[in-house]
């Protein structure tokens, strides 16, 4: 029997709730947004009780997301500053993708990919929020010109697609890298996972009660 290290705490309960609120709203926004984006997907409005309700709910979910994501941002932004090892990691992205991680620098709590996801979503959600307000005719129809609304529509669509793509990367990474998901479900990861992927962070965390 192999000797195993104790699990390492990665996310507090509050952080996990915050994450999942964000996640659920993002998924709902993606579904409702895509429903209004492409006619092929209009059927998704059925999930929200029809087109009118979809149109009505989407911006409110957006508000939830914005607030919730702000929470995540405040929690994590200091951990997502770019470090020298992130550049090295990025240079070796090909190896990472090919599951060849030998010779990569030791990493803190987040690797460069995760940081890019973080900053990417931060920027996109900010843009989505702002452009979303411009498009929220129920309350703000008179605040902007039609041309501004048109620009907002394009910005909103582009950012949404970007956010969805990042989300796919984010979710896939969690599936691909085994042992990741429990960080957001149970709040902890195994010592081995921490050693393998975030050794510098593990070195800080190991032994803490």
């Amino acid at each position, binding site marked *: 029997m*192999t*000797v*195993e*290290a*104790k699990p390492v705490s990665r996310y507090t309960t509050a952080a996990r709730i915050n994450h999942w609120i964000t996640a659920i709203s993002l998924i709902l926004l993606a579904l409702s947004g895509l*429903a*209004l*984006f*492409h*006619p*092929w997907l*209009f059927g998704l*409005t059925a999930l929200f009780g*029809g*087109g*009118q309700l*979809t*149109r*009505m709910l989407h911006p409110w979910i957006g508000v939830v997301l914005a607030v919730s994501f702000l929470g995540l941002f405040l929690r994590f932004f200091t951990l997502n500053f770019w470090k020298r090892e992130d550049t090295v990691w990025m240079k070796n992205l090909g190896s990472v*993708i*090919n*599951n060849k*991680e030998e010779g990569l620098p030791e990493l803190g709590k987040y690797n460069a990919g995760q940081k890019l996801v973080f900053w990417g979503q931060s920027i996109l959600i900010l843009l989505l929020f702002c452009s979303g307000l411009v*498009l929220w*005719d*129920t309350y703000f*129809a008179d605040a902007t010109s*039609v*041309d501004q*609304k*048109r*620009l907002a*529509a*394009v910005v909103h*669509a*582009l950012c949404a*697609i970007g956010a*969805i*793509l990042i989300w*796919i*990367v984010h979710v*896939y990474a969690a*599936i*691909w*890298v*085994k*042992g990741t998901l429990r960080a957001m479900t149970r709040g902890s990861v*195994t*010592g*081995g*996972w*921490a*050693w*393998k992927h975030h050794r510098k962070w*593990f*070195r800080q965390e*190991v*032994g803490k009660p």
Partner: protein
Amino acid sequence: MSVLQSLDLRRRSASPEPPPPAGKAPAVEVAKLIDVSKCIGCKACQAACLEWNQLDQPIGYTDGTYNNPTDLTPASFTVMRFTEYEHGDDFEWLIRKDGCMHCADPGCLKACPAPGAIVQYTNGIVDFVSDNCIGCGYCVKGCPFNIPRISKTDSKAYKCTLCSDRVVVGQAPACAKACPTQAIYFGTKADMTAHAGKRIEDLKSRGFQNAGLYDPPGVGGTHVMYVLHHADRPSLYAGLPDNPRISPLVGVWKGMLKPISLAAIAFAGVFGLVHYVTRGPNRVTEHDEEEAAALEKQKGA
């Protein structure tokens, strides 16, 4: 409007193009011709529109002009726009009946995400089908003429229907019927274009060298056309667009962005799948666990 419509469709919002109706001769394209040079701004058309469509426009206030209501609303599908145009010693009071132009290439329909909320009949009329409208306001953004208005009451978009309910039974739109000076003509687009030709000739004989027909090609032509004394400068008439076209932004948004986006999402999904299948999951090895345990022990020691 048009819940009971019995007209064939040429286009339907957020839907594939319907096939041409089988066993029928192609529909004749209709058009409303608004002869600005004959219009006396009496607003009989506005009154007729309110009456026929049973609209309940609230009583407003005057803003010191003859524009009442001051803008299109969900309950005012058409308004007169008065422009005082001074040039040298001369003066003209340009009066234009504003409302939906029923574009051949309708920006509203292009922008609409709700299947069947906006339809274009084979006769050219562009109509809003309230039952299908979700109130998103995309039509407002799609329209190059700033026409649709969203009701605060029922969150649906409204605009001139060209009285599709009258046209389908062989009647001219209410506004055309009410116009005392025949400034509003209604008929086939070909007839209206020909009639406009005569009117333009008359206006040229009266010194309006730039008289012409407003049937802007940028939106594929319209089924509401204007005879203008100054066709070289449509914007004189309360900002009628000189060269209207669907905004390039709307073109991007409702054009290439849609397939590219879906492709990108699909590609990301497929990439993940292929990667997973070919490269397999990234697992923590026993060695990693041992290393972790060792470090833990060392730290704990």
